[in-house]
């Protein structure tokens, strides 16, 4: 791969996702805990590792600019010449020398590239938010995002699994006999779980209930686009139970790209 490489950065609420490549060829990917990423970048570092031949300023910036080159040292990334970023942080924190694109665009581009499809409904299930994007002719036609809280997000599922001492792998297997969870609040959901355990509900049925409540919250957002195919991305798309419940709920095939969690970063490489 001799073409100039682009570093795509998707600064999510839980993980910062990196992809380096040219067009659809991705040469390197990495994920870093968001807090660690900001701490490492904020603390600054040498600019000797990377950078193209132009005169861009590679050093740590003052204020809230991130030193992405410091980050590269952490991740052991190959050389790149352009940076494109997206994700939560991008309105507050600029990646030094980088161009920022809206998340919706990045995710749609990533999904088009990864699946080869041009008409689909993309469901991005992230750590703190959920996006449903209608893609037509390979372009964003419309989108909707969940409301402000983390209800029904990846963080909610993590909390429920942690409360029950279950791994995310176990969580992803539980879809049968779900108990009805009334509260999808990422915080108050925990106390509801404690109540259900004391009432004798099994851990599997509670985990299935958590997965089902995420899907129940998602379904009205998806239905407005009357999808023929659903593409699921984001960390929660790795959860088999959520995918299965989503298929049952919508009656539509759910496709997961090869790298669901890196989808936004891959979209940045293209963007």
């Amino acid at each position, binding site marked *: 791969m001799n073409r100039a490489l682009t570093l795509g950065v998707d600064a999510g609420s839980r993980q910062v996702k990196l992809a380096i490549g040219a067009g659809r060829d991705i040469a390197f990917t990495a994920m870093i805990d968001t807090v660690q990423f900001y701490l490492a970048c904020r603390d600054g570092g040498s600019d000797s590792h990377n950078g193209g031949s132009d005169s861009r300023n590679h050093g740590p910036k003052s204020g809230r600019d991130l030193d992405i080159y410091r980050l590269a040292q952490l991740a052991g990334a190959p050389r790149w010449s352009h940076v494109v970023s997206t994700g939560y942080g991008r309105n507050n924190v600029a990646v030094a020398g980088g161009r920022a694109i809206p998340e*919706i665009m990045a995710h749609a581009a990533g999904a088009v590239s990864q699946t080869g499809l041009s008409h689909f409904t993309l469901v991005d299930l992230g750590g703190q938010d959920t996006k449903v994007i209608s893609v037509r002719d390979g372009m*964003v036609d419309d989108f909707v*995002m969940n409301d*402000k809280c983390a209800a029904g997000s990846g963080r909610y599922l993590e909390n429920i699994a942690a409360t029950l001492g279950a791994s995310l792998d176990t969580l992803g297997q539980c879809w049968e006999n779900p108990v009805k969870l009334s509260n999808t609040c990422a915080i108050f959901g925990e106390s509801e779980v404690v109540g259900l355990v004391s009432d004798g509900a099994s851990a599997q049925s509670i985990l299935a209930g958590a997965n089902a409540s995420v899907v129940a919250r998602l379904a009205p957002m998806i239905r407005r686009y009357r999808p023929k195919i659903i593409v699921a991305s984001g960390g929660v798309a790795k959860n088999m139970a959520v995918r299965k419940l989503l298929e049952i709920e919508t009656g539509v095939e759910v496709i997961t790209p090869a790298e669901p969690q890196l989808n936004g970063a891959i979209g940045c490489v293209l963007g």
Partner: protein
Amino acid sequence: MNKIGITTTIPAEIVFASGGAPVDLNNIFVTDIKRSEYVEQAEVEGFPRTICGWIKGMYSACLDHKIPKVIAVTGGDCSNTHVLMEIYRMRGVETVPFNYPYGRNRQSMQSELALLRDSLGASEEASERWRARLNRIRRKLDMVDLLTWRDGKVTGFENHLLLVSSSDFDGDPDGFETKIDRFLEEARQRPEIDAPVRLGMIGIPPIMEGLHEFMEMTGAHCLYNEVARQFTMPFGGETLAEQYLAYTYPYQIGPRIDDIQTEIERRQIDGIVHYVQSFCHRQMEDLIFRERLDIPILTIEGDAPRAIDARTKIRLESFIRMLAQRKGAAV
């Protein structure tokens, strides 16, 4: 002139005819440096967190600005106002109800106007004279609106701020008219705003700050503020009853949608931003707009008087970029 608070647009003509000066409590709340404290203060006094920020802000602002009397709209706006009136009275503020008749019936409207005149001690003749006086200013606001969407000389925020002020004319119609005259003169000299995306805003006036400015920074000109424009009574009318029956906001949603559709076409709007207020019953209207309006709609929600947050920015940016892509324009 005696200051008389108002909870939303009411027939200001009658207030002026009574020798009073209307003060839109929403405006004095949201433009006050203490706006956040106002909301907190109301919560400290026991207003629930799950009640609209406008209600809480109006409550504290009214007391802080020592407004002795408030005209509260009991039909056609917000049912929270009913209890707000009770609390005002408990705090020694005199309240006068005004009701937009849901059936939009002429006779009912005439009797509501008569009740308001009687409560304030205004004659019908004086009220109609004030209609003619204020109409002169209202038609100048039409010009502000025209300079916004037809000529691209006025920003979305300026349009919002001037049009929304026609609920109370700053309590000083002469001063307000002079302000508009000066603004028009200055705005006509400006270069045209160059923005690839033409946006419209529908829904109640937003409580958050920087919304219009952010849209314009991102490549969109907001050239339609639906409810603010309705405050100017764009359809006029030969009598006060006719004028306030033509006002679209307080009644059934059908004529309001017709008005929005007409303006979308006339102004060649690419997309609509529907602003909804947290805990407001009007949030449900989103469902109707989405079903009835054949145009991309972005719904954004605000709860408190603070700068727009990162999530709202992400949504707006993506929406504007999407609309630009559809037109084949770059932002």
